[in-house]
């Protein structure tokens, strides 16, 4: 359980069939692991494959080969080869993800969007809403927005809903794709504190942070993604 996330020999490319089968290599031979209580930050220039790595780990992208091992309820699950319902079970209980953008569902109020991951794990709706309210208050989301669907919120407000939703559970592995990108300084600070609390609680975090200040504040170490560049491997 000390190393809840291990990525081993992962290769990924896209084949664009609509462009005459053009093959775009993304990453090659990705190897790393994240220990409990550690926040590993993916570094390197844009387009090097940082977000793609997070999407592979969460199961949104398939991999060409390799393993993505997640410790899930005393078992080791390979996300790269798991069937959909196993991936969903791992997401529900173990593997969290805060994406850059919130995918909003029409008509569902912000409070319920945040409470949903708890409800999915069997928490009563009432308790889940109470905890959602705590997190949203902590992130300074104005209370009169809680009952509104986030579709019409500003970028920063949506992002805070997204962060609240990702941080509300006690998932043991958390993937963060630029969670502070559209936040002001005060709220960035709140998120930094929340990330530190997760580290203290033994959560393994893997994230992308372009904001240097935030990166400095949370990173246990920086993992340079350019070492996995397929162009380099080919050379």
């Amino acid at each position, binding site marked *: 359980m000390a190393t809840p996330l291990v990525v081993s020999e992962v290769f990924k490319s896209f084949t664009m069939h*609509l462009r005459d089968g053009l093959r775009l290599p993304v990453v090659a031979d990705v190897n790393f692991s994240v220990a409990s209580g550690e926040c590993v930050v993916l570094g390197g220039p844009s387009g090097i494959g940082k977000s793609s790595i997070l999407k592979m780990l969460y*199961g949104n992208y398939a991999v060409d080969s390799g393993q993505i091992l997640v410790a899930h309820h005393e078992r080791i699950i390979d996300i790269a080869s798991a069937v959909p319902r196993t991936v969903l079970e791992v997401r529900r209980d173990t593997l969290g993800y805060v994406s850059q953008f919130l995918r909003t*569902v029409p008509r569902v109020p912000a409070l319920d969007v945040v409470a949903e991951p708890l409800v999915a794990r069997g928490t009563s709706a009432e308790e889940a809403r109470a905890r959602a309210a705590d997190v949203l208050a902590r992130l300074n989301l104005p209370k009169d927005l809680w009952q509104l669907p986030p579709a019409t919120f500003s970028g920063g407000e949506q992002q805070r809903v997204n962060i609240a939703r990702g941080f509300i559970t006690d998932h043991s592995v958390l993937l963060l794709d630029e969670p502070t990108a559209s936040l002001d300084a005060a709220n960035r600070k709140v998120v930094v504190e929340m990330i530190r609390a997760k580290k203290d609680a033994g959560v393994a975090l893997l994230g992308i942070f372009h904001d240097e200040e935030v990166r400095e504040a949370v990173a246990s170490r920086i993992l340079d993604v350019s070492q996995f560049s397929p162009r380099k491997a080919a050379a």
Partner: protein
Amino acid sequence: MTDLPLLKVRDVSKFYGSRIGCTNVSFDLWPGEVLAIVGESGSGKTTLLNCLSTRLMPSTGSVEYHMRDQSYRELYHMSEAERRFLMRTDWGFVHQNPADGLRMTVSAGANVGERLMAVGDRHYGRIRATASDWLERVEISTDRIDDQPRAFSGGMRQRLQIARNLVTGPRLVFMDEPTGGLDVSVQARLLDLVRGLVNDLGLSAIVVTHDLAVARLLSHRMMVMKDGLVIEQGLTDRVLDDPREPYTQLLVSSILQV
């Protein structure tokens, strides 16, 4: 999560003469899972749905259902009466056109109550109370309980059809383009409603749609069909974010951005 599939589908094919409806479809559907079948018109998705839901006899293959008594029964080895009973009680079927799934000339309350009577409920007051409760859940004002669906809008009819199907607490619901033909604001409301009900009731569902946004919102898993074949399947997020097959890439790249 129980560890037995609700539906086991093996090598189901349907031929119309020499033409292919669908071929060699195999999959397991698990309790609580929502599967979307996508593809353009004529790809065989409705044929497949009908083969799975006993509405159309497949040419080959088997479909086994996990009954409430824990046994597996091959659907096409059941008697017609058993199949009908299953359809009326443990299953739901939501048609694209509500008129196909409703009785248009009896009241909304009776449309919902009829399914209850099919499972043996005879107490008028209780049936009416349950019907009224379900109308509320699908956001139809209860003062419309005595109106016929003929007098309802398309969106209301569709919601009534959903209430009629869910009132008996089915474990498996088939939906054929449930939002087809509705305008977008009505669609959003219906999707949200269906999503909530599926989550609350822990239903399994198989949803045929050509709308990838509907599939994204409702389904856990997705199958893409073309010319009667399942060409790609997997986690809905994966199929939509990283489509592998040429045809799936074409479908995904054809979505209009708003």
